């Protein structure tokens, strides 16, 4: 079976004896051509401009070569993927079909029953509907739009059209072109001027919408002086049989606004996770990315902030954990294109059991971006002698009056620290756990409380068996 599998990865439905019941309302054939792209657009009843944009992007996708840097992507067979599946209102799977390992992880993380089913893709409804409705009324009263992007295109076509593809054009990279050609789902958030959304918006509040898909498209527009915190994904493993996840996230943060975007990525370990996330920050605006990567087989994701007007700020926090068979190649990109801009990047990576974790980042300072400042700090922890840590920071500085610093360290858990904790009666496993938790603390403390709790449990779970 593995030999005939073009991706060469263990497919979950093989590994777990799981058979996909294939109860889709509509399923396009495998592979991608103009006809499939047109079909996706017509199934969705989209306006002509979107159909044309998809086709334009498809043409670019076919012409653009795969990136030759970063993780090995040559084993992705783009012709062996279904690009559009319209699910039967979430009734495709049953709880019994979900692999035991995933169920056990949910239990260990303490995730409520209903949420478990939602995460496993088997729950039709997430039972906090009433909570959701109250929140929804509140947002709507403020003029906040929070929809899945397909609905947004139907209900607010002008806003979508104004911003779609302006932050991440399809020509940006091959995967962005692919996403633009076949996108489906994702979140659309519009925050009017001066509105502060105090409760984080979370993707799973959108209960009746399509679940986060393979090629979701997320857009956040923060009008001047507004604030929003969007939380995507969750700490629990997302059970999926998808082999390729390629999202595009576009964010516009206008004058004086602040946007925070938190992701904890935990795709199952057969997934290629190739995501383009980018924000444009205007005068005195602040963009913050908090990005955690735990799952997937391969992740290439470099959340970016383009600071295009004076006083814009960027803050990027990244934590990554690579275990057996995983290659995590996340990072960050900050572009200083205006005076008095500031950026800060903190990356924490952990590799164990043969995993490969790293940081790849760009700091770019354009001429004229006077008094801009950037600080990047990358720390890596390697927990055994067959794992690997990579750091690839690129700094391109074209302005004299700028200050750019970068620091990185790679080390193992120090014997002194372990010894100290063990001399206080802590077991070796728990000591290791505590040290790793301390290592990622600067990032975890930025998470909403429930995520921080889950994140710590998850790390404990990942760390099991790491000592003797």
């Amino acid at each position: 079976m593995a030999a005939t599998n073009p991706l060469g990865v263990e497919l979950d439905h093989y590994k777990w004896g799981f058979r996909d019941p294939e109860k889709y309302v509509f399923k396009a054939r495998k592979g991608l051509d103009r006809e499939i792209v047109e079909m996706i657009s017509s199934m969705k009843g989209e306006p002509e401009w979107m159909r044309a944009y998809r086709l334009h992007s498809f043409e670019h996708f076919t012409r653009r070569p795969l990136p030759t840097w970063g993780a090995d992507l040559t084993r992705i067979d783009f012709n062996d993927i279904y690009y559009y599946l319209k699910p039967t209102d979430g009734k495709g799977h049953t709880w019994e079909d979900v692999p035991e390992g995933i169920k056990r992880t949910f239990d260990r993380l303490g995730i409520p029953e209903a949420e478990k089913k939602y995460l496993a893709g088997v729950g039709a409804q997430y039972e906090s509907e009433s909570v959701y409705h109250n929140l929804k009324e509140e947002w709507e009263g403020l003029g906040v739009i929070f929809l899945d992007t397909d609905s947004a295109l139907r209900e607010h076509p002008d806003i979508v059209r104004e911003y779609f593809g302006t932050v991440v054009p399809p020509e940006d990279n091959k995967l962005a072109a692919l996403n633009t050609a076949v996108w489906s789902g994702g979140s659309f958030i519009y925050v009017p001027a001066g509105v502060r959304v105090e409760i984080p918006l979370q993707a799973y509040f959108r209960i009746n919408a399509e679940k986060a898909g393979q090629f979701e498209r997320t857009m956040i527009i923060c009008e001047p002086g507004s604030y929003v915190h969007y939380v995507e994904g969750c700490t629990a493993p997302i059970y999926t049989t998808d082999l390729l996840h390629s999202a595009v996230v576009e964010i516009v943060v206008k004058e004086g606004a602040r946007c925070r975007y938190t992701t904890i990525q935990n795709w199952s370990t057969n997934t290629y996770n190739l995501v383009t996330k980018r924000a444009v920050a205007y005068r005195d605006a602040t963009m913050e990315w908090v990005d955690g990567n735990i799952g997937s087989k391969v992740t290439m994701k470099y959340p970016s902030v383009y600071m295009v007007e004076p006083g814009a700020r960027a803050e990027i926090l990244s934590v990554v954990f690579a275990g057996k068979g995983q290659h995590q190649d996340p990072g960050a990109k900050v572009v200083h294109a205006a005076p008095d801009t500031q950026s800060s990047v903190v990356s924490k990576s952990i590799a164990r059991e043969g995993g490969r974790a790293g940081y790849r980042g760009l700091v770019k300072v354009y001429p004229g971006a006077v008094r801009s400042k950037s600080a990047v700090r990358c720390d890596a922890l390697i927990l055994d002698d067959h794992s690997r840590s990579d750091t690839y920071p690129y700094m391109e500085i074209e302005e004299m009056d700028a200050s750019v610093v970068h620091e990185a360290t790679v080390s193992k858990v120090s014997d002194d620290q372990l010894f100290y904790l063990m001399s206080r009666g802590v077991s070796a496993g728990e000591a290791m756990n505590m040290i790793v938790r301390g290592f990622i603390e600067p990032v975890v403390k930025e998470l909403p409380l429930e995520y921080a709790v889950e994140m710590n449990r998850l790390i404990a779970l990942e760390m099991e068996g790491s000592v003797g």
Partner: protein
Amino acid sequence: MARGSPGGLTRATIEAQSARMREPDWVHARRMAAWDAYERLPMPAVTHPQTWRRTDLGTMDPGEFCLPSGTEGASRPRFIGTIAREAEQRSGLITHLDGGMAGSELEASAVQQGVLFLDLATAVRDHPDLVRDVLMATDSWPGEHRFRSLHAALWTGGTFVYVPRGVEVSLPLVSQVWLGARGCAIFPHTLLVAEEESRVTLVELFASATDGPRTLCSGAVELFVRTGAQVQYAAVQEWGPAMWEVGSLIRGHVDRGASLRSLVVVLGGGLVKVDVESHLLGAGASSEMLGVYFGTGAQRVDLHALQDHRAPGASSDLLYRGAVKDSARSVFSGLIRVEPGAQKTNAFQVNRNLILSRGARSDSIPMLEIMADDLRCTHGSATSHLDDEQVFYLMSRGIPRKRAAFMIVEGFFADVFDRIPGARVRSYLRARVAEKMI
């Protein structure tokens, strides 16, 4: 004035050169194999886009250059006078003019102990047993990239240093390379073998004519530091602005308990792209790597450093300092690579850059690839402008702004310059930095 052979570089160029030099068959055969690789390979921007994309070679065709045909009348570089006055501070001196050896000397005590210090063309004829197994002998060499193949096909001149087991050469050996011929290319190759427990210092000075059409240098330095040996190597480069130095390499192989200290100073050249590598092959090997680069005018400087840890308990420590002024552009990329099994590694890398003008650009890319866990690796990079407070302090002491700026830049380079052997070379370099500050 020296003139080059017309017609550019062809297979016939190599045939003629091999015959003229009366080279052994094995040398000739290697040249021809490398030429085949050169003809087969596209430019490195195609084969190595990640490491070559930051320096644009434009339409430059290495095959269009000529080889210099003689040394008569070649104008002499300024530093030759500087070095000549420093005879009491060196153990030996060799001079290469326009790809040919123009004289060498080695102190009698070193000769008696079996030290060899001669041009490589002579060494391949007279000491094949010492040269054959180490000269560009790594399997990958000719195919590493197109300029490396070209170098292997056409190397001319360059120095061979051999220090027998246990021998210490007390004072530095100095090698100077000068290209006076216009529009020509040189491919100097330096090969140094320091046998077990020996000690030697080699200083190489490179310069070329200050005017005329573009010239090319694609050189290589191979340093073999055997068990317990200690080698110090310094390359000081002040090519004329017409020079493009492309694809050059300084590669050290450091065995068990041995130590290599390398130092690279890049002041001249229109475009300079050089790799500096220390391969730590034996337990407890160590390497210190220092560098200074100062780009002014429209200079392009692109340096890549590799700290390659292949054995346990080895250490490497790199410090590269660069400044850019006017519309100059610098690239420093450094990689610490720790192979599986290289436990107890200590590896450090620091790159600092000063941007002295609007319009100058500095890229810094310090990289880590770590495949062992019991180690300590750190790197740091900082890029900024002249510290206003320092300038203000000096000006408040009555020092004019220009002088203050020079003093700060001189101080910025001082900890590397201070380690260059030879007081006259050091003061000469300071003067050159002062000239570039104007």
